[in-house]
């Protein structure tokens, strides 16, 4: 599904933008997440001139170093049952998969935020927690446990616990999620899952030149 490798000025422009592959002719269109529009507008040089100085290689809104932000949807979303998972004494469990093959090995992650939208019949979610582990055939070690906020998207920072900060990211990240509901019985559905990944490509961020 790839177009033939471009040549001439188009290839030079691709190289200048550090894009190695010729992009696919027509991507699967999906709505652009509001957070990505917000980050794009925040980096608009005209907005910066209007009184918001921009630090090079820094994502102000997220408060981290970086020059590339990716919104990566869960690639297993459509294979999941739309029906809520019933607990019957067991914890609701899901597997989410993120395709990170487009991340260059030289990029270093500075923020990896898992965002989930859970739909549950229970209104009282007091004491609910989400457990995050790397997916494996046998139950993997829990790497992170975060409280489930009522009515809001659940956000969990994976950097450090699940994604190493100073290393290349894996080509695929598959996570096993399980919901701990305390003593209550829950029927919950994972409606949406995505990963907001911020990375720093040092090649796009040259060090400041010193004056002689």
């Amino acid at each position, binding site marked *: 599904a790839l177009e033939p490798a471009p040549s001439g000025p188009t290839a030079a*422009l691709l190289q200048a933008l550090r894009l190695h592959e010729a992009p696919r002719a027509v991507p699967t269109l999906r709505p652009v997440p509001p957070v990505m529009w917000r980050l794009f507008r925040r980096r608009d*040089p005209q907005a910066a001139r209007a009184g918001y100085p921009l630090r090079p290689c820094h994502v102000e809104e997220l408060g981290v170093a970086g*020059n590339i932000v990716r919104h990566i949807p869960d690639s297993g979303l459509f294979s999941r049952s739309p029906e809520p998972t019933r607990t019957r004494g067991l914890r609701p469990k899901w597997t989410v998969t993120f395709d990170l093959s487009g991340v260059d090995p030289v990029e270093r992650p500075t923020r990896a935020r898992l965002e989930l939208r859970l739909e549950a019949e229970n209104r009282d979610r007091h004491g609910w927690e989400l457990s995050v582990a790397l997916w494996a055939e046998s139950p993997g070690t829990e790497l992170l446990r975060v409280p489930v906020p009522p009515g809001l998207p659940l956000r969990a920072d994976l950097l450090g616990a699940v994604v190493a900060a100073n290393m290349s990211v894996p080509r695929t990240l598959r996570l096993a999620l399980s919901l701990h509901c305390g003593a209550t019985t829950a029927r919950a559905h994972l409606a949406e899952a995505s990963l907001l990944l911020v990375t720093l490509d040092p090649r796009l961020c040259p060090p400041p030149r010193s004056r002689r």
Partner: protein
Amino acid sequence: HTEPGVGGSPWGACRMRRLHVSFREVGWHHWVIAPRGFLANFCQGTCTLPEVLPRSGGPPALNHAVLRTLMHAATPTPGAGLPCCVPARLSPISVLFFDNSDNVVLRHYEDMVVDECGCR
């Protein structure tokens, strides 16, 4: 799209010229979400007297460039020509696009737009 040459010499004095890259015209409009193109601009022109001398509203020139222009005017020397007309100030751009895995990507690039040219 580039700015056409001006009368007299092919380009006249050193200054910023308009260069706009349209993503539609390079066939990238299917996957680049925003912007629709970018105003890259470029520098072109000669750094001769009196244009190279510092003046209000003119391109900023380094002292070294002024000295070199004066020497060239007095004694043209092969191999030691006029200073170059190059970017003096650049600004960044951000590009929002779909990658090959249909992820939405925001990439930020430093020094992509010429804001000002000068003799160096």
